[in-house]
């Protein structure tokens, strides 16, 4: 029964992990941008939902479209006016720029909203159903389902729409894409914006189940790294599988080794994968 509870816990949180990582994976796979601001985007989504709930009593699930829209615009502007200028200078430059951006955002959040930890506590928080001794909170199920829906929608977008296919074209061959007339700069902007919007949605969902503060950008970013390595770069299914896998691994590590090793185990797996199967389960090999 404890094992069942552990599986359920890991599975449910894995969905959120997947949504956090999916945007990160997309931007890296498409534009070769390792976006160190990604964790902060997630946080911004969480804060937007928090303040809308706190000030206007808007249910956090209903505020998701709003946080996605705000993050979409933010991502678009960052790509257009900052990242576009360094994309051609190589991965290292984008690392530095996004790192700096993350610190700027982080400190602005501290100034604006203080270091207090926040969370969204709705009236239905904590309620759930119990099946065979395993307790399943409603919110976690809703979050899991929504996270998966977002990932699947993203996948449909990438495979069935013109813009989506243009984005995918860039992951295969940038020169080829340019030759067939795809506007690289514009596609980068849209990709980055979508990635930020996904992060925003993830943040809104996270605000309902976890507490957060401006300093949590880095842990969210670490999850993204581990999941990208596990699931493979640029693959949505990879992010989903990677996310769920990470959730389950962390859950079981608490059962087996104790809570102190929860984060460490994820990174041990990351190292193992890097050595044994660096492209992850579904991804292509890393670009350098």
């Amino acid at each position, binding site marked *: 029964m404890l094992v069942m509870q552990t599986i359920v816990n890991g599975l449910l*949180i894995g969905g959120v992990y997947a949504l956090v990582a999916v945007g990160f994976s997309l931007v890296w796979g498409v534009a070769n941008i390792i976006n160190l601001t990604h964790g902060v985007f997630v946080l911004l989504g969480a804060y937007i939902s928090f303040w809308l709930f706190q000030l206007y009593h808007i249910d956090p699930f209903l505020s998701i479209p709003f946080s996605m829209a705000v993050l979409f615009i933010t991502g678009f502007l960052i790509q257009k006016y900052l990242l576009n200028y360094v994309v051609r200078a190589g991965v290292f430059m984008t690392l530095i720029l996004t790192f700096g951006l993350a610190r700027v955002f982080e400190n602005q959040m501290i100034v604006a909203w203080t270091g207090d930890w926040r*969370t969204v506590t709705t009236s239905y928080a*904590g309620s759930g159903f119990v099946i065979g001794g395993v*307790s399943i909170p409603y919110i976690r199920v809703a979050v899991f389902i929504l996270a998966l829906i977002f990932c699947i929608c993203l996948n449909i977008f990438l495979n069935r729409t013109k813009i989506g296919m243009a984005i995918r074209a860039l992951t295969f061959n940038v020169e080829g894409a340019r030759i067939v007339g795809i506007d690289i700069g514009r596609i980068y902007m849209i990709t980055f914006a979508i990635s930020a919007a996904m992060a925003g949605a993830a943040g809104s969902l996270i605000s309902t189940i*976890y507490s957060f503060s401006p300093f949590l950008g880095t842990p969210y970013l670490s999850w993204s790294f581990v999941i990208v390595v596990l699931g493979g770069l640029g693959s949505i299914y990879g992010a989903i599988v990677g996310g769920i896998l990470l959730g389950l691994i*962390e859950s079981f590590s608490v*059962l087996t080794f104790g*809570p*102190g090793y929860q984060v460490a185990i994820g990174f041990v797996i990351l190292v193992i994968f890097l050595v044994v199967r660096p492209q992850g389960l579904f991804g292509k090999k890393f670009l350098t």
Partner: protein
Amino acid sequence: MKDRFRKVSQVLGWVLVVGMFFMMQGSTVFAATDEVKIGASISLSGKLTREGNGLKEGYEFWADYMNGKGGIEVGGKKYKIKMIFYDDESNPQRAAKLTEKLITEDKINLILGPYSSGIAIATSAISERYRYVTILPLANSDKIYVTGYKYVFSILPVASRDMVPMMDLCLQQSPKPTKLAAIAANSVYPIMVAEGIRDYAKSLGVALVYFEKFPDDTSDLSSMLAVIKSKNPDLLFEAGYYEHSILINRQLKDLGWAPKGLAYSVGPQLPEFAETLKKDADGAMAVAYWHRALQYKDPVLGSAQEYAEMMKKKFGKYPIHVHADGTAAGLLLQRALKDAGSLDQEKIRSALLKIEVKDSIVGPIKFDRNGRNIWGSTAVIQIQGGDQKVVYPEKAANAKFLYPVVPWSQR
């Protein structure tokens, strides 16, 4: 073109350097009245921001109160108190750097301690090196007081005894609890508290079914709590800080399980605990380092209740232990200065070692050779109906201890 650019940037560079040199001089010499500079590195942001800001208010209250009376007396002369606060962002390394800055650059006369043992260990290493006395109002992990430091003094009694009164209370109930699960955030103070209660439980024959440390900055403990639930302990005692207690309480509710006796080291001491969790907070116990209902009285400030009313007037809310222990630290320092008759650290240290405070707003204070307050004791509070009620010691209790905790579904 390139040459001119280089020349201009060289000149600009020098202007910048010279300008910064002058800016760094700061305000040093011109003090119109005699003043005593007291420095404190406190967690004004980060994980411990709530507790840290409370401590700052406690210090400020003392400084403003005494300055309103013309200052504090040292060697027959009156000095105004000038507090210098720095934000250590709840980070021990930063706190250590700031303490060094206070001593070497700001040239403070005296230090008042930070919030939390983890940070105090870092700052004490620095203050010990420079031989500056530090009164620690809120850092009571036993670890600090066995290192052989000579210049630290703790207002609170040692951490390992913190939860003893709670255990005693629970063991008086029937049916008598027999199984304990103890968990601690992986930080200096919580570990001492948890190990202390573990050892105490063992000495009384209570079975320890689970004992683990969890990461200090975790955002998810549901897996650990599921393991604890499967062991079905009667008592769950947690040692950590405010954020941990909120997380654990919520995730216990998610799991649909609560032990018969639930205790946290810090959480319920802060009013935000009951405000945030509402009816889910009921039944939780906490160590109470201080409560305004306790019958303490300070010769300078008045009773704990009078202090509470003054604080309410000044800051708009009733004080909790972080405020009271901060103010008490200031008052203790003031008394040590009067006894020492000088600002010399060695004389202040000797004065503190000899001091016997029969009563203060936080109760009696006397130090042993290692700086532990051997006259100090803790109370126990329990959240009932959204309010903090003192349930122990009996002479200060304003409510009866409720056991077992009401299950979630029945609230």
